[in-house]
């Protein structure tokens, strides 16, 4: 029986992580689905859908040699995997400001209350160590309509003045 797992993998960034992990999976007969991999703060991180006949123990054993050589932390979750079900984002929201605790929490809490579901979020810290700034780009869908999200973002902007800058653009997808 084919199982889907979400493989989460974190380790100090070094050359060849993706190649060695994916080769081990390929040679072990696994098939890969959607993935997100990125270097975050000097670490390399992977979230990877893996489709396999192996059970958790066998998959762990398959990854163990690579994980040990490259000093990677590996975590496996059995998931209900589904491909070919991409929801369409209809809004891209951008938030930035001087880095301080709570920006993500405040913004996403208000967005969730306005029915905005996050499909993709990337954030980064720029600037210099003594004057850091925080940047976040969110793509998602306004499930309760654009006016609710627009009002939430306007309120956020009002509450924070120029402490943070909030803007959004609609994502119009042209199918041709």
């Amino acid at each position, binding site marked *: 029986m084919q199982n889907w797992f979400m493989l989460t993998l974190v380790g100090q*960034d*070094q*050359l*060849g*992580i*993706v190649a060695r992990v994916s080769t081990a999976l390929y040679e072990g007969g696994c098939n890969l689905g959607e993935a997100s991999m*990125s*270097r975050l703060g000097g670490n*390399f991180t992977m979230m990877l859908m893996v489709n396999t006949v192996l059970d958790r123990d066998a998959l762990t054993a398959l990854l163990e040699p690579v994980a040990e050589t490259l000093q990677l932390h590996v975590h496996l979750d059995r998931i209900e995997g589904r491909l*070919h*079900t*991409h929801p*369409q*984002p209809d809004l891209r929201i951008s938030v930035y400001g001087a880095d301080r605790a709570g920006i993500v929490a405040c913004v996403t809490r208000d967005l969730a209350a306005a029915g905005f579901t996050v499909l*993709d979020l*990337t954030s980064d810290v720029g600037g210099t160590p003594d004057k850091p700034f925080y940047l976040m*780009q969110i793509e998602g869908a306004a499930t309760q309509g654009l006016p609710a999200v627009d009002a939430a973002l306007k309120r956020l902007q009002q509450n924070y003045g120029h402490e943070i800058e909030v803007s959004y653009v609609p*994502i*119009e*997808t*042209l*199918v*041709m």
Partner: protein
Amino acid sequence: MAILEILTYPDPRLKTQSLPVTTFDDTLRARLADLADTLNAGPGGVGIAAPQVGWFERVVIVDVSVKPKLKHHGRLVLINPEITAWEGYAVAREGCLSVPDYTGNVIRAKTIELSAQNELGEVQQYSISDYEARAVQHELDHLDGLLFIDRLVSRRHDLFRRKVYATTQTSA
């Protein structure tokens, strides 16, 4: 009237270079009618290129009038089209009837000048901008075997990263 089957990637025929149309007759116009019917049958499509239905000649139909609030020329039947001038650029998300369940950001010129023949073989000149220009560029790519997935820009780092002047250390 016929609704034709739309080829979907990874069908290798979508990578075919299409040939110019040389004969403007009733057969051509009948095929154009079928192409238009196929476009109309799809959900919300704003354009179709002949190679998407396995017809490998330089023919496209663009019609963004179905979308509200877009500038447009109505239904454009473009035969042997050539873009003669480009200006500006914009990034927007595209999808394609031939690439189901995937959309991505693509850079296109904002304004184009276009020369194309109509179904009678008469040469027409167009000045096209914004979404209509995007749709035309997307469809013309099909004539050269190009799909929007040939032109994707990074999802994470949108467009242009700032030029790095200092030497930075990276791995992987």
